[in-house]
């Protein structure tokens, strides 16, 4: 094993090992102090950052670092290859994940000082970093899906971080539902690759598929990518996710998690390039999301939601770039967007302070920015657009009305049939009372 391979393994595994060790110690009854925990976290991510920097030297020479561990498990003709790989595409994402996780950890050590969930936050941050590094360094779509799922579950658990308030908890449930629904696309897409190409590994070239097969796989992967990147029609979960603590919003929805969908499409670019239909759909979804994001963002009343929609708009543009095949422009766009949004999210709690400081510095009120583009529209259209934006494009309403409500109605209908012949004791327990998966409508409503 070469030094580069050892470094790659270290970078990916280090946060996971820290998570496992601290979680086990906690289960056995030991809770580490805040200072010790943040020190270990800082050390881990600093070491990972140096590791990634070392990898840059190798990748810059044009080579790819690949580590093959064999199969994670294998049965019959089916195998789950355990291949880590970093190339010119994944390295920027690895660097982004490591550097931003380290920065967020340092920020959170102060921001969450004496917060009851301090340990929980850091454990989930390590797990998230492990999941995202695994997804970005995966040499096969199988492994990418595993990392993808870990990112999803940590994201959901951090949205519900303030567990004593019902709103974050209900919103976490909603986000979890959308993630799981969209991840079906990833799993079935991976299966289709296995079935048709016999492999999902891309460390030695991309799986070979025919035209129609490539289209189907791309559409399935697009479903997963759109869900993770909050593209329309799944954008409704993004403002709900702002219920989590600000540092987690910054790294998940400003930087890493929101761009994971774009990474998946970039990884599948060779397939996408062969499928005009899927490429057109990617462009269409990106365009729709960009327009949706920019309009809704203008009607958002709180800072984090405005930032979330600003991110969404840019991710929509990234999707357009991917659909057009401008791969490296998309990568550069993601890097820029992720770093700027992270900074903006982290400053969001101090926005008023910053605003006043700026006023003091310039010695008075900041002059208005001038005319807004929407003012060019007729007043009735402006009003309609405002109402549309205020309800966030009615996306949640549509999803509720066409997907969630019918499912719940079907469930209640089945429950009614199940009750045939049941005794009064079980009916009395109210097991089939109507439930809500909708949660509180929006952040700030509770």
């Amino acid at each position: 094993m070469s030094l580069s391979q050892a470094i790659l393994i270290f970078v990916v595994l280090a946060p996971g090992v820290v998570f496992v060790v601290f979680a086990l110690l906690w289960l056995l009854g030991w809770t580490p102090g805040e200072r010790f925990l943040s020190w270990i976290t800082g050390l881990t991510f600093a070491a990972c950052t140096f590791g990634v920097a070392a990898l840059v030297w190798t990748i810059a020479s044009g080579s790819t670092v690949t580590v093959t561990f064999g199969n994670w498990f294998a049965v019959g003709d089916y195998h789950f290859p355990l291949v880590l790989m970093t190339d010119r595409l994944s390295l920027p994402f690895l660097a982004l994940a490591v550097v931003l996780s380290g920065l967020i950890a340092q920020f959170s050590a102060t921001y969450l000082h004496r917060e009851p969930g301090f340990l929980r936050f850091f454990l989930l941050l390590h797990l998230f970093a492990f999941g995202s590094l695994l997804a970005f360094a995966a040499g096969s779509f199988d492994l990418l899906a595993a990392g993808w799922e870990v990112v999803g579950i940590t994201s959901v658990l951090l949205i519900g971080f303030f567990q004593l308030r019902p709103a974050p908890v209900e919103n976490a449930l909603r986000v979890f539902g959308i993630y799981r629904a969209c991840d079906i696309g990833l799993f079935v897409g991976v299966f289709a690759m296995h079935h048709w190409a016999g492999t999902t590994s891309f460390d030695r070239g991309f799986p070979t598929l025919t035209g129609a097969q490539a289209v189907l796989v791309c559409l399935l992967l697009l479903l997963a990518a759109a869900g993770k990147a909050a593209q329309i029609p799944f954008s409704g979960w993004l403002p709900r996710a702002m219920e989590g603590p600000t540092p987690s919003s910054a790294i998940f929805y400003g930087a890493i998690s929101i761009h994971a969908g774009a990474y998946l499409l970039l990884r599948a670019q060779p397939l996408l390039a062969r499928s005009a239909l899927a490429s057109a759909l990617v462009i269409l979804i990106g365009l729709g999301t960009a327009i949706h994001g920019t309009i809704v963002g203008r009607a958002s009343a709180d800072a984090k939601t405005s930032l979330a929609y600003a991110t969404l708009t840019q991710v929509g543009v990234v999707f357009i770039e991917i659909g057009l095949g401008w791969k490296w422009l998309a990568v550069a766009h993601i890097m820029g967007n992720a770093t700027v949004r992270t900074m903006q999210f982290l400053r969001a709690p101090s926005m008023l302070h910053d605003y006043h400081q700026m006023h003091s510095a310039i010695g008075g009120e900041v002059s208005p920015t001038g005319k807004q583009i929407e003012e060019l529209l007729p007043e009735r259209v402006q009003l309609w657009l405002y109402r549309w934006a205020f309800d966030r494009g009615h996306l949640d309403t549509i999803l509720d009305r066409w997907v969630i409500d019918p499912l719940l109605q079907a469930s209640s209908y089945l429950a009614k049939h199940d009750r045939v012949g049941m005794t009064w004791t079980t009916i009395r327990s109210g097991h089939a009372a109507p439930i809500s998966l909708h949660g509180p409508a929006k952040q700030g409503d509770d």
Partner: protein
Amino acid sequence: MSVPGWVLHKPFLTGVSIGVPWFAAVVLTGYRRHVRIVGCIAAFTSIVGSALLLADAPNGESLYQALMLLFSCLTFGATLLLPRRDCTREAIAGILFLLGSTLLAYSTGNLLVLLSAWILSIVPFLWTGWLRARAWRPLVGLLFSSLALALAVGLISTSTGVISIDKLKGQSPGGVPAFALLLVAVVFRKGICPAHSWVADAAETGPALPTALLLNGHFGALLVAKLIVPLFPHTDSLFPVLSYLAIVTALYVAIRALAENSPRRLLAFLALSQSACILSGLESRTAEGIAGAIVHWFVVAISTVGLFGILRLLEVRFGENLTASKHFGLAEHAPRLAVSFVIFGLTLVGLPGTLGFCSQDLLIHGALTSHRLIGLLLPIATAMNAVSFFRLFTRLFLGKRRTGFTVMADALPRERWILAAGVLFVIFGGLFPNAVVIRRSSEADLMQEAIHTGLDLNPIGKVERPPGKLPISATR
């Protein structure tokens, strides 16, 4: 000091594994003290016996020994996890009787003994009155399944004059009527649609842990693996019916769970939906589907017993009026129970890093390979189950903290260690799945071979191959 040879003899070890729990159950009918200790010793004896049997079994022929070990461990864990309030001599005796009957069903190669074990496993529930008379569906479901199996066994034995499973392989004994009766037995015992309601009723009205053990004996899947697959390898047109029913059940019950607010019923639906996948994997006729089904058998059994055990602990500590319609915020009071609950639950629905991910991955690939369109329902059902589980978790453990609980203990040391053992198994199994999957993979290869070629399987999975023919895995 050397161990006498007869001690390690297979019949002796099997007899000890089955006989000691039964003997302890009889002892407990007259002995009232130290019931938990007696139960643990009996279950531990079964663990040792099964472990020795498993160690002695050749690679690829150890499925039923592994299942014996699994069920013994589950019983040991359930005995430790049982709250003091529930730890009566009737409860422990019933659990031990169930253990003996289940091990008998796993280990036997005789049709009549299998039928007896099938019926005996229900006896504790009738004898102790665990299934309340008012909830009639569990009784009807279990009795119907027994009746169907008895008729099938009768038909097979009268038409062939043979009761040894070994000698009946590949002969389709009793023809389509016997096959149909066996299917009916599976449908009723496993809770496959339309006979699914009894499972939730049993979980709600019966004692949590014994019912979880009864459901996790997976007698329905056992019947498929032990009788239907080896005896009827030529029923190509009929066999998929079982798979379709299983997949439809997985989806139906997953939808049903979405609006369920009773935690016990909800967990029962999740367990049922996930365990229905086992049948579809066994029927998939692909090595990955069958191996996935066997590994999933382990995953469902461990997770479900863990979840029901934790739910019962919560009921004992925080009252029995828990519901998924409002938040209870119990994680504040019981963080370790919350963590164990979420790990077991996410294992059940296939979170990466747990053994559930590997089993789901294999199962879904197997199901999609054999039934491309209807197989798509399986990942959809799993996604819905994940949402239902997460809803239950958030309602029980998160949200506004409730006050007024008289006891607010987290997991006691006894409970903590046994839960930690389960959690470690599913996590390390998930990190290093080959340790579990490789042995199941060889068994899957043999079962797949038996389905495709009609080769003979003996009761513990041994293939009598023509000279020079190797299992599929060995030819790769």
